[in-house]
């Protein structure tokens, strides 16, 4: 998640290393923008971003296409790579495609895989104002009156993303659509669970249901694959950016709709089914109006069940990042216990009558 949250200090980077890195980055930015020179006036990690690391980057460009003071974000891979996410150069290409399609995203500016510049691959984009914090968005009374309109707008944004369709040579690195459908996803979840220290009977039961209710494939569209509250920026009542494109890929449009509406992403407002911010109908209206297509509720239901399985698996993966030693983090350590919440949701979605009596 990027935003204008206060940069916090970075105790890991020593002053000397920091100076070298700034100098190399300044040279890169000057050259890439056609400026005579570039001075970095601020570089500090932004809060948020559980998988990628985001840096607030303030720079003063002497000439070139970005002449003047600029507030930017530099996005690099965090220390533990999570499988199946795009690298920064690929994410940059997806951002460019979305930007060109009229999606509200921070304008992507540069990307580089040269380790001499920042030590690891990164991309640079403009810094949009606002906050993405899901708990705050769903709790703050001042935001409340504007949220239904935001939900409708998000529906329109999602429809613009889904208007990007293959063939797209610029997105040729994306996994072919036939390998990204629900069946390969289920196979991936099962393979992951087979290596877990504990069995998860509810997830197995949910995946069996999914496997026996696969919807007929639709023509693939570009899915964001993490389109949800927590991944868009609100500046007061205005939507300023859709963030975190690292999981983008071809898929069924209902996949993103199910993910957005799934209970795991409603934060403080479980009762508001569209991302904890509005009724589902308002979000659907925005989507249907922009796309000219009708959302199929049965398909959304399927993908919402899959969303709960996927979130449970991600929760287990997150806690594994802590358990297996990569990252010491209370937040990650506690995330694994959220898998139980997903399991309850799977039961509620597939067995609305509740626990069988007398069984």
């Amino acid at each position, binding site marked *: 998640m990027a935003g204008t949250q206060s940069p*916090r200090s970075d105790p890991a980077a020593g002053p000397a290393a920091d100076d070298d890195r700034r100098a190399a980055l300044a040279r890169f930015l000057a050259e890439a923008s056609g400026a005579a020179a570039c001075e970095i006036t601020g570089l500090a990690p932004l809060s948020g971003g559980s998988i990628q690391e985001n840096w607030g980057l303030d720079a003063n460009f002497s000439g070139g296409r970005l002449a003047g003071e600029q507030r930017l974000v530099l996005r690099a891979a965090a220390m533990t790579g999570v499988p199946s996410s795009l690298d920064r150069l690929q994410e940059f290409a997806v951002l460019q495609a979305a930007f060109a399609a009229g999606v509200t995203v921070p304008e992507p500016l540069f990307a580089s895989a040269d380790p001499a510049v920042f030590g690891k691959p990164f991309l640079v984009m403009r810094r949009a104002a606002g906050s993405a914090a899901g708990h705050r968005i769903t709790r703050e009374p001042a935001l409340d009156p504007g949220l239904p309109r935001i939900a409708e707008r998000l529906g329109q944004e999602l429809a613009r993303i889904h208007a990007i369709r293959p063939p797209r040579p610029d997105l040729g690195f994306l996994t072919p659509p036939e390998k990204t459908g629900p069946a390969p996803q289920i196979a991936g979840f*099962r393979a992951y669970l087979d290596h877990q*220290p*504990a*069995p*998860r*009977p*509810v997830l*197995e*039961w949910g*995946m*069996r249901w999914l496997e*026996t209710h696969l919807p007929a494939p639709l023509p693939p569209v570009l899915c964001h694959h993490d389109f949800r509250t927590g991944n868009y920026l609100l500046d007061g009542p205005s939507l300023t950016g859709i963030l975190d494109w690292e999981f983008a890929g071809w898929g069924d449009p209902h996949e993103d709709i199910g993910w957005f509406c799934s209970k795991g992403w409603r934060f403080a407002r*479980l009762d508001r089914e569209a991302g904890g911010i509005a009724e589902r109908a308002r979000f659907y209206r925005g989507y249907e109006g922009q796309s000219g297509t009708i959302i199929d509720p049965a398909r959304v239901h399927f993908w919402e069940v899959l969303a709960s399985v996927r979130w449970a698996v991600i929760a287990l993966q997150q806690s594994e990042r802590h358990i297996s030693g990569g990252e010491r983090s*209370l*937040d990650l*350590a*506690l995330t694994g*216990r*959220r898998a*139980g*919440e997903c*399991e*309850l949701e799977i*039961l*509620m979605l597939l*067995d609305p009558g*509740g*626990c*069988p009596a007398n*069984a």
Partner: protein
Amino acid sequence: MGDLPEAPALLALARDVLVNDLLPLLPAERRLDARLVANCIAIAEREAAADLAADTIFRELEFFYKRERPSPSRFAGASLSRIAGEGPERSEGGEGAEHSEAGESAPELMYRLARELRIGAFENSPEREARARAILWRLTIARLRLANPRFLAANGFA
């Protein structure tokens, strides 16, 4: 039995000191971490106090596979984590584990349930299917009573 106060009471005290005495003294940007620590302590508190529900679920699971009631005390002390297969006994073929009549430990039975649900083993028997589903509900509710009782309540489960 250990010393007094027992673990749940000791953890409750630690959480109280953290939230009420220490947290107000912390700078604003570190308060979230303190709240996460308080949440960890609360989970440990509930887990330390909660072996009974797990014992019941495992007896049900055993009955599901054996079709006969085991003696009520057979699995006393089986914690939810051990039942869910997180205990160290999983790969040891059951040494020191709670065993069913056929020699399957609590984690082994849970594995068996998971494996059989994956292949739809109960789908031809409405009675077996409903009983398996009931175990899933009880297991999930027991898990959330420990991990996140507020989420359980927010979804209408007491």
